[in-house]
Structures are given as structure tokens and as C-alpha cells.
């Protein structure tokens, strides 16, 4: 290392707020970043495959596995009764999620056994040889069927209420009612689920799991094996994408690998094929929103009443908090003077739906945007005018209270929207588009500006805690570990920046290490966009503790006041003396200073009472807005996204390069959800879009043709977050609601914008064409 350069450098490499590249970028591009399937396998590693059922709802009368077991290379077959202590992995602790179906099949593809064999290929082929006899039971897969069949709820519903919505709807000058279907979404992380379990001594086991929630995998493995948490170590260096799909859904594979590993005393790897992964793991919840809105001739909302019914699948999983978060975001950015929102988490005979980026929030918010769009078409106005009229007011305006009685204190939506409206030239472009549509017969255009306000914090208050473990070694190098997981979002990079900044050392001196339950215990899932807020602060706290001790040491050794000691780039400054950081650390070691610390953080201020529907569930809100312009072909319904402009609030960005990546990536992923990504079940309850050949996520050629993404550089978190930054994982996912609404406007053009097209999602070319036909028919 070139020390002279270090001494001349005024700042460190990789401080907070710098556009540092992802810590693993050079390994990603050269194929040397190891995912679990890339790790060298312990000698004698066995491989698992799921044995899947082919009924949506049925009793298992008999399961003949003789041919499976007799297959050369098969070592054992596991069924529900082989789970040593419990066959349940319900993350909601409602005891409703078996590891393997035990006599009852509740969704098409639900695993009923697992094959462990000498190779993955043998295991997969053998799994198909089972002969299962069923007694069919009636099944319903979608929300309408569930409602018609009086389906039970998988978990307790929520009501959010303020004022008297019923009475005010009666009193409102105008009133409308409608229904919107919102489709689900497959995560399509590029790396499928995987777990590698390595048995240890006594009751010990180590599991490498592609999971966003190592602590939960630890608990589930312990629970199923019947061993305490201290016997189970769960590790993950990186995932090939998560998006919420690896919050609870990895449990099954980790548990099966662990059970087999302990039973056989050999390492066992479980990696489902893509189709099996998509069939057997949960997705984003579909919703059916029934709404009534009362408003006046100007477009001001008086009252909103809405029911959010959700396809939850056969078990509760995270459906409770997901449907809760949908309600928390049904207000989008708007003040509802009177409001009543209810959730209906329905049980269906489909795979149990789970966390997915936004966690119900996008579905809630898209409902809110639909209310506004309805009002605009009813009044013949630009939806943007209706939006502005109904935005939350400034703090203390009397229009700042959410349906859950939290005051919106950090509202910057007005500024975001007005800046974007100007920079994207919204008004002139809208006018030009309306002109274009009057002369273009087949091709029509649309444009829309939609806002985002997203609440940050786990609504389960206890989850808002995090730990970090930091060691400074004698040579001055630093070891960083925390409870957050890396799934591509750049969390490891950001937390390393926090640490480099705290110690004022170049980031190259900070070694990022794999997340493990053995170093930082009792972690929360890396979810709810909270990763850098929580873990960044925990790492900061660990650094603070070590620095306190170092300052004490220096004050004594150099006989000076504490305020004369500071951490400057790659040095410690003591009075006028500059001591290189490694030299300083070595001296501290010889003075027997503890150079390791466990940091901890818990989010302040938040509380939430679900029973009363009141509280402050969110520490703060993240804001943003997007303008999208699209073209549609009214003969086929095909469309193209011509241009998108985004202005997004990440507070004071910890890393603008990573944050812009999250905004762009979140946008395109959200656009896929609303456009081409369709989950399609047949009448047997089989999901038929279970691979990329049938399930279509956006390609490079689907991204906006012109894509202008900016961060609101003036923004700063009003709360004391790490570096005054804001969470970024989920909020941008909702920006492409503007794409849906732009498509809607293009459709509406065929009936002179007098009717809301009520596009359901995903707005596939087929749905767009059918909406065009519907509107043309009404007009005629």
C-alpha cells in the first residue's frame, strides 16, 4: 500500500454519502462471487428434491413411495412423520404451515415428501415415481371464488377508521363506487432458493441458507429438530436476489436439508428447480378492492370507504402484516377527512402468499390512486389536479392525519411533485398528447404523474432493532458483521461506508463478512427497507463504543484532553500529532484496550396498537413521484413506455450510486408487476406461469425508452437516521403506478376521457385491448 498517498489524501476512500460501487461488483462480473451453490461441497454431500402433489385440495389416501426409495442412488425419503420434533414452520406461529403435507393437500404442488439422493438429478427423477392416491375436495383459487364460498380468513383482519365515513358518503355532493383487481407477482430472484446443511457434534448443525432472515431459519430448524437455538448456526454471505421472497420462504428448504443432514450425518443440499421454486413458494398477494368515494364538484375527497380482500393462500405466513400495510397505504399521499378501511385476508387453495417488496403497500397505494383517477374522469379533469387538491397538508394544517391517526410531520410531497411537474414538462406534454390522440387513429398516448409516500418501520414494533459486531485487529484492519443480509441492495457496502466514516479509514480496511446467527443474534429480517437504517446505526454504535475507549486511552497516554483527540483520514490526531491509524491501534492493543464491540440500535418514537387502529407505526415517510408517458396500439393492446421521469427522496443519500440503482430497479420491477407479469391458474388450481418461458418479467427492451431518474438532492431526513438518509428498497417500487395510469389515459382517449377505464392489473396487452373495446362500446 502506498502510504504517501494516504498521508496526502484529505478524505478517506468510501465515506458516507459517496457513490461507491457495490463491494462485490468486481466479483459479480468475473464470476467469483460465491453463492451457496458455488461453495465447495463437503465430501459426501447429498442432494434433496421435493416430492410434489398434483391436487389443489385433497386428502391423501395413500402415498406409495416404494419405487422412489428403490431408485439407485436414493438414500432416504422424508415425509411429515420424519420431522423429529414438529412438522410446522409457520412464521406467524399459528401452526398452519406444515413442512410436508400430512394427509391434507392445500395447494397444487404442495410438497408431501422429500427425496435425498447421491445427486440432484437422481433425486429429481426419483421424486416423480411416487404414486399418491387422493380424495378430492372442493378448491377455490381466486378471491372471487373464495368470497363466494365463504372462505375463512387466515388471520385476524384490520379496520382503520377515522371520522364517520358512512355518514359522510351520504352527505357528499358526489359519490362513486367501484372495484379493482390487483394481480400478484412472482419474485423471480435469479438465484432460486437453496440451503446447504452441515451436521455438527451433538445437536449442532450449520445451515447455509439463501435467506433474508437467518434468525428465523435458525428458529425453524431448531423447532423442527427439537434443539435449542444455540445448537443452530445459520449463515449467508449473499443472495442472488430476495425482494421479500426469501423472508420466510427459505425455511422449508433449510429445514428439510437440516433434518436429512442430522438423520444421515452427511451434508445435504437442497436446491429446487426454477419451476418447483415458483410452484412451491409464495408470491405477492393479489387484492380485490371494493371502494366508495364521496367528493365534491371541485374534486376534493370527503370520505372513503374501502375493503381490501386478499388472496393469502392456504396459510397465514405474513398475510396479517401484509394486509395491514395495504391499509396503511390506501391513503397514498392523500388526506381522507372521513375514512373506513377494512382488510379481508382470505384463505385460498393456492401457495401461501408472502412478503414482496412493498409488503402490501403497493396494492394499498394503487387503490388510493384509483380513487383519485375515478374522481378525475368523473369530473373531466386532469388527475394531477385532483391529486394536488387532496395531498396531505403541512404539519398542523388540519389535513395531516392518516387513517391510523399518525400525524404526517415530514411532508415534502408538494415540493417533489411541483419540481417534477416542471422538470418533466408535464403540462405541455399532456397537452401535446391530447392533441396527438385527436388525429392518431390506431396509436394512442397517455401520460400520468403519480406520487409516493411510503411509511418506514416494521409495523411490528419489536422488529425495529438491530445488532452489529465490530472488531479492530492489531494491524488496524477492521472486521464488520451485522444482522442484515445482502441480496444485491448494497447493504453491506453502505454499512461498511458507515464504519469507514466513523473510524475515518479507507473502506479497503473494512472487511465485510457473511451474516451469521453466531455473531449477531436475534436479528430481524432484512426487510421493510430497514436494512441500512437499522444495521447502519448498530454498526455506528459499535464504532462509537470502540472510539470512546480509544479516546480515553489516548487522553491518558498522551496526557491531553479528550476534545484534543480526533479521528482524521487514516490517522488519529492527538493535539498536533498525527498518528497513523494502524500504529495507534497497535499501541491501544498493548495498553490492553478492548478493540471489539457489539453495537445495538432500536428505532425511537414508534408504537402501534392494532386493536384500536391507532398509533405511530412509522418513524418517517419516504417520498417520490414519477411521470410516465406511454403509447398503446388500439388494435392489439400492445404498448410501449416511451419516457419516464422520476424525482425520488432518499433523504441525504448514503450512496447515490446504489440508491439510483434501487430507484431504477424498483421502478422496472414495479412496472413488470403492473404490465406483463401475470400469474395464471387453470381450473385444476394449477399455476401455469411457473417459469420464465411463461411468466414474463421486464427485459432491457421493456424499460422506459427515455429514463430520467434523479434523487431529490435537497432532501434530508427530518429524523435522526444514519447520516440523515432514508430507506430506499421499497418506496420506488410504487413509482410505476404512473405507467398504469398513463396506459389508462391512452385507453380513455377512445371515449374522449369521459370514463375511467378501470384497468385491472397486470395490464397485459389483452386487458388494455379489452378496456379499449369496453370504452368504445359505451361511447357508441
Amino acid at each position: 500500500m502506498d502510504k504517501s498517498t494516504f498521508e496526502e489524501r484529505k478524505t478517506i476512500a468510501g465515506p458516507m454519502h459517496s457513490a461507491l460501487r457495490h463491494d462485490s461488483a468486481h466479483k459479480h462480473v468475473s464470476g467469483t462471487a460465491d453463492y451457496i451453490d458455488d461453495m465447495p461441497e463437503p465430501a459426501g454431500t447429498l442432494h434433496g428434491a421435493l416430492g410434489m402433489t398434483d391436487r389443489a385440495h385433497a386428502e391423501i389416501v395413500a402415498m406409495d413411495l416404494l419405487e422412489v426409495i428403490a431408485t439407485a442412488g436414493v438414500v432416504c425419503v422424508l415425509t411429515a412423520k420424519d420431522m423429529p420434533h414438529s412438522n410446522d414452520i409457520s412464521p406467524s406461529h399459528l401452526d398452519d404451515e406444515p413442512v410436508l403435507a400430512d394427509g391434507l393437500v392445500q395447494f397444487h404442488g404442495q410438497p408431501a415428501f422429500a427425496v435425498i439422493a447421491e445427486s440432484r438429478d437422481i433425486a429429481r427423477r426419483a421424486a416423480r415415481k411416487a404414486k399418491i392416491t387422493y380424495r378430492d375436495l372442493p378448491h377455490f383459487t381466486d378471491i372471487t371464488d373464495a368470497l363466494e364460498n365463504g372462505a375463512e380468513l387466515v388471520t385476524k383482519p384490520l379496520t382503520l377508521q377515522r371520522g364517520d365515513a358512512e355518514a359522510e358518503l351520504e352527505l357528499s355532493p358526489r359519490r362513486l363506487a367501484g372495484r379493482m383487481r390487483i394481480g400478484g407477482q412472482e419474485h423471480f430472484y435469479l438465484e432460486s432458493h437453496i440451503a446447504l446443511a452441515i451436521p455438527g457434534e451433538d445437536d449442532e448443525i450449520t445451515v447455509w441458507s439463501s435467506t433474508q432472515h437467518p434468525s428465523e431459519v435458525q428458529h425453524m430448524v431448531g423447532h423442527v429438530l427439537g434443539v435449542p437455538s444455540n445448537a443452530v448456526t445459520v449463515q449467508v454471505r449473499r443472495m442472488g436476489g430476495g425482494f421479500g421472497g426469501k423472508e420466510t420462504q427459505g425455511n422449508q428448504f433449510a429445514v428439510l436439508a437440516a433434518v436429512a443432514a442430522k438423520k444421515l450425518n452427511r451434508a445435504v443440499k437442497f436446491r429446487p428447480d426454477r419451476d418447483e421454486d415458483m410452484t412451491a413458494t409464495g408470491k405477492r398477494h393479489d387484492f380485490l378492492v371494493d371502494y366508495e368515494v364521496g367528493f365534491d364538484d371541485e374534486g376534493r375527497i370527503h370520505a372513503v370507504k374501502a375493503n381490501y380482500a386478499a388472496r393469502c393462500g392456504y396459510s397465514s405466513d405474513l398475510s396479517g402484516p401484509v394486509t395491514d400495510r395495504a391499509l396503511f397505504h390506501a391513503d397514498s399521499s392523500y388526506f381522507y377527512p372521513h375514512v373506513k378501511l377494512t382488510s379481508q385476508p382470505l384463505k385460498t387453495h393456492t401457495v401461501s402468499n408472502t412478503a414482496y417488496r412493498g409488503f402490501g403497500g403497493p396494492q394499498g397505494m394503487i387503490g388510493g390512486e384509483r380513487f383519485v383517477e375515478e374522481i378525475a374522469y368523473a369530473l373531466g379533469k386532469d388527475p394531477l389536479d385532483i391529486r394536488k387538491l387532496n395531498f396531505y397538508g403541512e404539519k398542523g394544517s388540519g389535513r395531516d392525519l392518516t387513517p391510523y391517526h399518525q400525524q404526517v410531520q415530514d411532508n415534502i410531497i408538494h415540493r417533489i411533485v411541483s419540481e417534477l411537474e416542471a422538470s418533466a414538462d408535464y403540462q405541455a406534454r399532456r397537452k401535446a398528447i391530447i392533441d396527438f390522440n385527436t388525429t392518431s387513429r390506431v396509436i394512442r398516448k397517455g401520460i400520468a404523474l403519480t406520487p409516493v409516500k411510503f411509511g418506514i418501520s416494521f409495523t411490528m414494533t419489536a422488529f425495529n432493532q438491530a445488532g452489529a459486531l465490530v472488531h479492530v485487529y492489531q494491524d488496524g484492519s477492521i472486521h464488520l458483521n451485522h444482522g442484515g443480509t445482502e441480496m444485491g441492495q448494497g447493504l453491506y457496502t453502505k454499512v461498511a461506508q458507515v464504519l469507514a466514516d466513523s473510524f475515518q479509514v479507507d473502506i479497503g480496511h473494512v472487511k465485510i463478512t457473511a451474516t451469521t446467527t453466531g455473531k449477531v443474534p436475534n436479528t430481524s429480517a432484512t426487510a421493510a427497507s430497514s436494512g441500512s437504517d437499522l444495521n447502519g446505526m448498530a454498526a455506528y454504535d459499535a464504532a462509537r463504543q470502540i472510539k470512546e475507549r480509544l479516546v480515553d486511552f489516548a487522553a491518558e497516554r498522551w496526557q491531553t484532553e479528550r476534545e484534543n483527540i480526533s479521528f482524521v483520514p487514516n490517522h488519529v490526531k492527538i493535539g498536533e500529532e498525527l498518528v497513523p491509524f494502524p500504529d495507534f491501534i497497535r499501541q491501544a492493543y498493548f495498553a490492553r484496550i478492548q478493540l471489539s464491540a457489539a453495537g445495538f440500535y432500536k428505532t425511537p418514537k414508534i408504537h402501534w396498537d392494532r386493536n384500536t387502529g391507532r398509533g405511530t407505526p412509522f418513524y418517517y415517510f419516504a417520498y417520490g413521484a414519477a411521470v410516465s408517458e406511454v403509447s398503446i396500439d388500439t388494435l392489439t393492446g400492445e404498448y410501449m413506455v416511451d419516457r419516464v421521469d422520476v424525482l425520488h427522496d432518499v433523504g441525504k443519500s448514503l450512496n447515490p450510486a446504489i440508491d439510483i440503482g434501487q430507484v431504477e430497479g424498483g421502478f422496472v420491477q414495479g412496472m413488470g408487476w403492473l404490465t406483463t407479469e401475470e400469474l395464471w391458474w387453470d381450473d385444476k388450481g394449477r399455476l401455469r406461469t411457473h417459469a420464465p418461458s411463461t411468466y414474463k418479467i421486464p427485459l432491457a427492451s421493456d424499460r422506459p425508452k427515455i429514463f430520467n431518474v434523479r434523487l431529490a438532492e435537497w432532501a434530508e431526513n427530518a429524523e435522526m437516521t444514519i447520516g440523515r438518509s432514508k430507506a430506499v428498497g421499497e418506496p420506488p417500487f410504487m413509482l410505476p403506478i404512473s405507467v398504469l395510469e398513463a396506459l389508462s389515459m391512452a385507453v380513455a382517449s377512445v371515449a374522449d376521457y369521459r370514463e375511467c377505464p378501470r384497468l385491472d392489473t397486470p395490464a397485459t396487452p389483452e386487458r388494455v385491448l379489452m378496456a379499449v373495446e369496453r370504452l368504445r362500446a359505451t361511447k357508441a
Partner: protein
Amino acid sequence: MTKSAGSIRFILNDRDIALTSVSPTGTLLDFLRLERRLTGTKEGCAEGDCGACTVLVGRLAGDDLVYESVNACIRFTGSLNATHVVTVEHLAAKDGALHPVQQAMVDYHGSQCGFCTPGIVMSLYGLWLSKDNPGRAEIEKTLQGNLCRCTGYEPIVKAAEAVGTIRPDSVFDPLMKARQDITARLKAIRSNETISIGDEAARLIVPGSAAALADVLDSYPQATVVAGCTDVGLWITKQMRAINPVIFINGIEELQSIEETQEGIVIGAGVTYSAAFDLISACYPAFGRLLDRLGGEQVRNMGTIGGNVANGSPIGDSPPPLIALGASVTLRSKGGRRTIPLEDYFIEYGRQDRRPGEFVESVFVPSLPDGELFSVYKVSKRRDEDISALCGAFRIGLDGGNRVQSARIAFGGMAGTPKRATQVEAALIGQPWNEETIKTAQAAFEQDYQPLTDWRATATYRMLAAKNLLMRFFLETAGERAELVRFEETA
């Protein structure tokens, strides 16, 4: 044909490989990851749709060495004889210095989770080797077969643009440096000898010539003929079907010619979509635009028009335009050849007129007579790299009075086979070429087709869109813009 003879020989990065024992259905991806522990190449979907497994395969085209991106997950190892397989591990210099393509991806923040990244690097590397300063359309076309779920692609496209200005001759590049050496080594491997490996339970055969292929099929009429692996690959990775023996024809040079004659073009059964692109685009521009949307680049580099025809899929993209253009197919066996109109080859769903011992040798596409109008449109949920919900091809001849003199219309996705719309054709012939005629003829689609509802589209949509595609065709012949185009220039 019962004894094992020869070995599958190829170059993997810088090493010579000779395999005397190969499973006929073993994939290149498993070979790389499980046998060679080259774990940079990832498995994302095992069906050729995500591109995480992208590698380059170099082959001799005549005496030229060309490198193309392929999906290692569905490419059988047995099909690699006399090729150069290049994986992501081969790009960086020995001292670890990144290749310019890799460095650009780092500099533009083109990776997040990183799992798709090696595949994207390889696709971009393939582009970088072959094109100076590619435009956005070319970059997007290159990336049609690569899914990224994290980035939204913007930084990847920017990286590709930036590195396009750095040319292979100006920097260290492992393939440029070794070009002559690799060419010589491949020439040394190349042979017209038939390779046969395995036993009766699992045999793979690589015939050295078309005549040898006919002989082999005579001995093994139940054999599965594999050209590009893009369909049969999935039989193995997804359906775990047992096929035996497997005959790989992608190395047979005679089947790889594509020629323009006075009457039209003759496409050998081994000609890939990529290899056919230039000539087809020149002769039938709309067909070229369709090929641009068929699969991803990797699939176009592997898959063949012959295979697309031979497998008889009702949703294959090339049969509708081929039928509309009046194409014929030549089948060959040890006993000789026969040529039939392509539309007669498709008997019903899952059944084609290919007799035991026969293979598709070539497809002949007649030239479009002067003044005839032709176009083809594909409608799918996602524009690129998707399977057609429906695909309609239209060819109309008008007389001097602007009346329809001849009409050939064929659709995929509307029936159990690619099928002509004879009633629609009848409704058009003799009528003036105007909107009234189109509106009348649209009703005839109901007589021609009873489409199905599935996850790609409902029957209602298919029928409505089919009718509307006829309107689009008319409007476009009348000079009205009726189709969305992402880029005005074609890649």
C-alpha cells in the same frame, strides 16, 4: 453403428477436452459446474430463458472462427464437438485485471445481486467482439435473452454503450490474442467422421455428413434429432424425458448453407436464426423483424428454422410467415428425398408428415413476386423473448384495379397447428383492397379458427386480435402507422 467410436473434443477456455464418455443428455452447464467446478456460469431457469448460464461458443464457419452466445443450461455437451467454449472465468487477465467489458459493468454499477451478471457480461462480450459502437437497439437485442431482476437494465445498457468505444485490437483480449491458435486447433479437431458414444441404453451420435445422418436414422428411426437443443433441452431439464439415441446435427456443414437462387432462398435445416437473419431480412423485411423478437440472442444462435419447422409446434414463430410465403420442406431419408408444401407437413397437433428415417433437410422459400404485399405480426404478453399468443402472416397480391388477386394468410396460436385462414383469404379475393373489404373479411376468421384460452391469452382476445391484425396489415399498406416500433432503425 453399435460400437463406440471417437470422442467429443472441444476447447474449454484454454484447455483441450476430449470426452469418450458423455451422457447424450448431459448439459454443458452441469459439465462446467459439477465436473469442472467453473461456477461463474449460473443456473437461473434451466430452460434457456434467463441467460444466467450464458457462455460463448466459438465455431468454424468455413475457415472463419465465430463466437456466439449460447445458453449452457440447455446445450448438450455432446453437441460441442469442434468448438471453443468460453466461460466468464476466461475474461479477466491472469493478474486479475478485469476485461474492459467487466470493468464497464463495475464502473456503471451494472450489478446488484450479481447472479445474472456473469451471463450478462458474456452476452455483452459477444456483442463487443463483433460490433463497433453498438446503438441502443443492438444492445437491447443482445440482451433479449438475459433477465436481470435488480437493476432495471439502465446501467447495463450504459456500460455496453461505454465499452463499445473501446475496441478489441486496442486492449488485451483473450480471444483476439489466441484467434489464430484456436482456429488451428479447431481445424485439427474438425472431422467428417461419425462419432458414436455410449451403448444401447444411452447413445449419442454425431454424424459426419447428411448422408451419414440418413444412414443413422435408417438404423435408429426412433432417434431424436437435435439441431439447436432449444426445444429438446427442455424435454430433459424440465420433463426429464428419456430419449435415446440422440443425434446431434449442428456440426453437419452441408445442412448449414443458406442460398439465394432465382426462385427464392433455400435454408438448410442446420441454419440458425442468427445465420439466416441477414438474407431473410433482405428478402422479407417483416420476417426479419419477427426474427428479431424470436427468443433471446442465445436461442437465435442455437435454434434453427429447420428445428422450428420439424418439431411441429402450433406456436412456432417461423411457420406462419413461411406458409404465407408458400414455403416447401424437403425431407430426406436413406431412400431419397421428397418435397411437400410446408402447410401439408403439419397434420394435426403433435403430428407431422415426417416418416420414420426421415429428417428435414431444407426449407425453400419462394421470392415475393414484385408488387405483392407481405407482412407478419407477432402478439405476445411481453414484446421480446416471449412465445406468441398469436402470430399472423399476410401476403396479398393486387391487380391493376387494386383488387385482391391472391391471398395467403397463416396464423400460429390460433389452432393445433400453424394454419391458413382459407375463409378469410376467400373473403378477400376478388374484392377491392379497402377498409370495407377488411371489415367483411374479419368475420371469416370465425370460420377458420376456434382458438383456445390459456395463460398467454383468452380465446376471445386471440380472435379479436387476429381480426385486428388484418386491419393493421391493410392500414400499413395504406400508409397509416398502426404498429408500435421501439427503434426506427433495425439492429
